[in-house]
């Protein structure tokens, strides 16, 4: 009988569909990078607070990572997008809902907060892998707690956790696809949109997979260069 399906790979480059996929790619890259900036800074902060001597800060940062890691990202995204504006009351909430491209900003914000909790976990592991002696040694030079973290421990831990951070950076592009559920027109959204117009969803999603593959390989290549540059001599890096 064979396949009762007429393949039409032309949808991948025929206009306007080919352009849609490229526009989607551009949006995926923009969301990924902006969310990554939030995730990195917030993640380093929260991760560091988890090992500080202050009990309340430790409690707060532990609660942060547990909450964000134990709720599916889709639910978080919906919460920020649908419930977030309502938190500000009816009047202000309605105004927020009228912001142009609100879904795009919410996606960046939500993805940033979510990934920050994962970065914080890696930070904690990084700190744990630095021996107690090193902390003592730094303090004995007369540095304060703040200086110790700022100039020695955080840069040190960051260099140790480069490989898992690379994985996390890749994951942020993959997770950005979930933003399609609130109507952000990134790659996955665009492949679905092509299906809605042409009924050739199989070709469109296959094309999108190829784009993610190229994006992923490019990121791994670039991060590999950065990793080798920041690798601590004598420590085990990525094979």
């Amino acid at each position: 009988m064979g396949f009762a399906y007429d393949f039409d790979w032309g949808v991948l480059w025929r206009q306007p569909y080919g352009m849609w996929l490229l526009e989607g790619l551009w949006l995926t890259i923009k969301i990924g990078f902006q969310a990554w900036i939030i995730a990195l800074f917030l993640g380093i902060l929260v991760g560091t607070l988890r090992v500080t001597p202050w009990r309340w800060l430790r409690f707060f940062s532990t609660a942060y990572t547990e909450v964000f890691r134990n709720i599916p990202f889709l639910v978080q995204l919906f919460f920020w997008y649908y419930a977030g504006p309502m938190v500000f009351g009816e009047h202000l909430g309605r105004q927020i809902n009228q912001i142009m491209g609100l879904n795009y900003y919410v996606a960046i914000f939500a993805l940033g907060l979510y990934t920050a909790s994962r970065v914080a976990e890696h930070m904690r592991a990084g700190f744990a892998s630095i021996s107690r002696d090193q902390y003592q040694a730094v303090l004995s030079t007369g540095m304060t707690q703040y200086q110790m973290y700022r100039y020695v421990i955080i840069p040190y831990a960051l260099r140790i956790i480069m490989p898992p951070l690379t994985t996390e950076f890749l994951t942020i592009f993959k997770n950005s696809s979930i933003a399609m559920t609130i109507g952000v027109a990134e790659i996955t959204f665009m492949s679905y949109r092509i299906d809605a117009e042409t009924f050739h969803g199989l070709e469109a999603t296959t094309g999108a997979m190829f784009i993610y593959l190229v994006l992923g390989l490019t990121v791994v290549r670039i991060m590999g260069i950065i990793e080798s540059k920041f690798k601590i001599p004598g420590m085990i890096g990525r094979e």
Partner: protein
Amino acid sequence: MFDAVVRNIYFLLGGFGVTLQLTIFALAGGIALGALVGLARISRNKWIYQPITLYVNFLRNMPLILVIFWFYFVMPIIAGRPLNPFLSAVISFIIFEATYFGEIFRAGYQSISKDLTSAAYSTGLTYSQTARYILIPIAFRRMLPSLITQSIVTFQDTSLAFVIGLQEFVRRTSIVDNLEVRSIQLFGFVAIVFFIFCFTGSKISRYFEEKGRKLGMI
């Protein structure tokens, strides 16, 4: 405070039931297939090793949501008729999660040293006895924390079946939200339910990890 949740509680819990079913099928299939994928990943036969490695590396680079769509489009072509979204979702979860479970099994298999096997043989145990009483229990204990963690991830991942219209927990919540417009309590409720299950799971995983470390297994 949770009035809209209470009014629709049976509908919502029904959705949670679908989520649980999806998780159970995905885990049963994903772990079984993952155990085989892990074996293939340590195989010396390149005709087994290379295709499976390609499959694992390829899917681990893909967003799950896209994989769900892809199977949703490809299954009717293979089956020659439209498939229900539940079956389509289960198949995509099994094939996707097996790549992650496969890597856990690979690490578990590789964590067993040759010396341990030799030591077991030298006491007079046969191959099947060695596997049954020494290798499998040790590998399993080592893998257990990661297996639980990945199971929690799978449980969270099932929410993505939302996109092919499957009426699981999140989809049903958003249906209720469209009628009631009580987003804070509705999505708050979903978040709390997921949190309780996943937090408990991560505590269990940590317990086994600590236990393994104390016994010097990890």
